[in-house]
């Protein structure tokens, strides 16, 4: 094992070409992740056709580099512009942008970077040491277990809801409803598609994200422009300390970071969930356990750390079901399967026997991608912060253009753009009336997961609901669901965890 890993590192470090591919992957990932509208998923989908003529290790490390870079990159625009660059960064916006507005963009980016790296490295270790047993355990999650897990996840709406729990539930319900558009997951008949082919595959997560969280946010922000201020978008740092992240600041949040790393790993190892949900759950649980829950949403470094650790922990962890079982954990992993196949490799239990050196190279590449990520971000984050200090008259139109082109590039279809506009208007109205579009986003992500698992479970049990209480895993999630609802109501009664 150790031999193999050392070999893996050697194949990358001593080969300039391999290093170059890794570098290219990470760079493209950061770039595309940081531009609203372009996502890590898209970066990877675009790299796959280029990998036909590469060596297996080269192509896989380039892809993993892009995934890791892209997942982090989303936080850059979340912090600097207030619009998440990728869905996975949606939970970072609340605190990251507030920090940016306070002149602490440099600090926030560095916190996001350190958190991302910690999360990714942690999941790499889990992946390397215990992928097989973790994947075997994940097999125990059947439809019933997933259903109860989703019930628990719905309670994270509680902390995203803002002041009014009713408004939070309304936002969540709207999200659930939008998540039902498309082909019915069980009977494969259309629902709410109005005979539009574009709707039959459902509303794309990126369209929903860009419309309701990015586009609408810019609409809210341009109101300031109407007041006649052509000012810089983001203030420069007030003091040199605003640019720095001290070790102490990192260390005081270590509990949160480790907790989020575990959450991200767990969610990544369970097929079907993905980094966006991981970030929201990590953020929510950090807020409940924090000593300063009132700071969350007001520019809390801890909040940034919680969300960013969790989403990058998915990078390594979603290779667990992919490599050990051949099951893609999320859209990115599904595309990765294609990349493996081009190389004549089938991800799954056989790969450890058939191509151990490729697996070792992949592990080593993923670990090294963190190093490159750190080097690149520390070298160039000033460029990003400089861009964000441009005048609003340049930033906002540019963001609009990036959003539209990114959404168009998804399916090369104009209908997606109209859908995006619709969500932008809806998101704008929601923000104006004190609803949180994030609750809609959470509902939207959970909707298909909840429904498909609930209905699968009921088919298996022939409509007998006792299946949802049939295993220790389901009991565990019921207990934490009840605990979660309890803490929400208690803290609201105390008026402490408002906001």
């Amino acid at each position, binding site marked *: 094992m150790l031999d193999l890993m050392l070999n893996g590192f050697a194949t990358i470090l001593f080969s300039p070409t391999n290093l170059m591919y890794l570098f290219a992957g990470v760079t493209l990932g950061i770039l595309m992740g940081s531009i609203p509208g372009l996502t890590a998923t898209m970066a990877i989908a675009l790299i796959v056709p280029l990998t036909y003529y590469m060596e297996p290790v080269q192509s896989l490390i380039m892809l993993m580099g892009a995934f890791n870079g892209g997942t982090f990159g989303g936080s850059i625009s979340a912090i600097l512009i207030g619009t998440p660059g990728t869905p996975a960064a949606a939970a970072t916006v609340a605190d990251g942008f507030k920090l940016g507005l306070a002149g602490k963009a440099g600090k926030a980016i560095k916190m996001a970077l350190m958190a991302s790296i910690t999360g990714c490295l942690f999941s790499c270790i889990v992946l390397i040491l215990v992928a097989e047993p973790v994947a075997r355990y994940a097999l125990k999650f059947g439809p019933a277990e997933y259903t109860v897990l989703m019930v628990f996840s719905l309670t994270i709406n509680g902390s995203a809801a803002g002041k009014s729990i009713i408004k939070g539930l309304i936002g969540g319900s709207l999200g659930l409803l939008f998540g039902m558009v498309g082909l019915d997951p069980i009977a494969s008949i*259309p629902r709410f598609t109005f005979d539009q082919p574009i709707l039959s595959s459902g509303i794309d997560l990126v369209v929903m994200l860009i419309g309701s969280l990015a586009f609408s946010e810019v609409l809210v922000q341009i109101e300031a422009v109407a007041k006649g201020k052509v000012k810089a978008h983001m203030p420069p740092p007030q003091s040199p300390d605003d640019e720095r992240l001290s070790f102490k600041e990192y260390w005081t949040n270590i509990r949160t970071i480790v907790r989020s790393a575990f959450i991200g790993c767990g969610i990544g190892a369970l097929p079907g969930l993905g980094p966006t949900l991981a970030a929201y759950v990590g953020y929510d649980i950090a807020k409940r356990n924090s000593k300063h829950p009132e700071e969350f949403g007001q520019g809390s470094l801890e909040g940034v750390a919680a969300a960013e650790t969790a989403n990058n922990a998915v990078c390594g962890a979603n290779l667990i079901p992919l490599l050990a079982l051949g099951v893609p954990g999320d859209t990115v992993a599904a595309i990765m399967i294609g990349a493996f*196949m081009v190389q004549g490799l089938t991800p799954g239990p*056989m790969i450890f026997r058939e191509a151990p050196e490729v697996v070792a190279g992949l592990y080593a590449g993923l670990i090294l991608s963190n190093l490159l990520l750190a080097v690149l971000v520390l070298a160039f984050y000033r460029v990003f912060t400089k861009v964000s200090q441009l005048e609003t008259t340049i930033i906002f139109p540019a963001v609009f253009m990036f959003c539209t082109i990114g959404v168009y590039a998804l399916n090369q279809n104009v209908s997606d753009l109209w859908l995006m506009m619709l969500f932008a208007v809806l998101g704008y109205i929601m923000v104006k009336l004190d609803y949180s579009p994030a609750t809609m986003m959470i509902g939207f992500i959970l909707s298909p997961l909840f429904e498909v698992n609930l209905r699968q479970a009921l088919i298996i049990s022939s409509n007998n609901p006792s299946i949802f209480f049939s295993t220790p895993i389901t009991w565990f999630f019921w207990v934490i669901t009840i605990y979660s609802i309890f803490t929400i109501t208690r803290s609201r009664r105390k008026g402490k965890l408002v906001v």
Partner: protein
Amino acid sequence: MKNKKSWMLVAVCLCLIMVVSGCSQKKAEKFPSEPITLIVNYGGGGGTDITARALAKAVEPFLGVPVTVVNKAGGAGTAGIIEMKSKKPDGYSVGVVTYAPLAIVPHQMKVPYTPEDFKYIMGYGIYRYGLAVKKDSPYKTVDDLVKAAAAKPDGMAFSASGYPQPFVMQKIGALKNVKFNYVPTKSGSEAATAVLGGHVEVTIAVMADLMQFVKTGELRLLASVSSDRLDISPNTPTLKELGYDIAINSYMGIGVSKNVPDDRLKILREAFAKAFKDQAFQDIMKKTSVPAKYIDGEEFGKLCSDGYKESEQNLKAMGVKK
């Protein structure tokens, strides 16, 4: 105001000039004289996309023009086909047409086409399906399975990742008067892991998704659900051999709008037939575990039309279509 109008005029003129010049050029020259677009009906990086891109590369030298690949995913594979149909029928827009969105999905949702709206260049791949249970399952044969299902009044659950797979269990059920309940999953590998995790007892999936676990011994293959035995597991009998007259097949092919002139269709058919033999393309097919099989255009069309009629009855029998 006047300024605006004159601008509009200029713009309109420019557009007209472009359109007119574009048309006149095309008519004068031989086919193909400009790049051909291959519309893939699934997203980038998937199995269909990978093989289609290899095919596009392979066909270029025989057509003498570049072939650009455009992905048009969505609508369960129908969006790409609709897109291809909406293009001018001049032979420059060619589409990947897969079996399910052609023959099955039109019965489940409204699409502006039937298999009769296209002419087919060729079929180039065929999916094979297998029926599998977990290694420690008490069921050693399909008959064991049927007996066990008969003992369950509510039926036995099976996993599969979409049509046409469930037709098999439905037909076995109808034949033996037992009930099987279809648990749909998002992908074939998820269907397989549902069995591995013990959540359902049996699955029907594409062999590519089952093979890994059959090799490690975690899944036991009970039957081939295709019309022949499987190359990868020649000892497994087909359902037909076991006395159930049921087989499902699913194909990948290339098609164009039915209004494409016959001479152009002929050129395309010849070029793609040659491309099929290309070694690099064959390698990619092998790597993605899709058995390559050349089916000529006319025959492929017939397979799709027959499948279209058959699926309608099957779906009605399953109660998911009125």
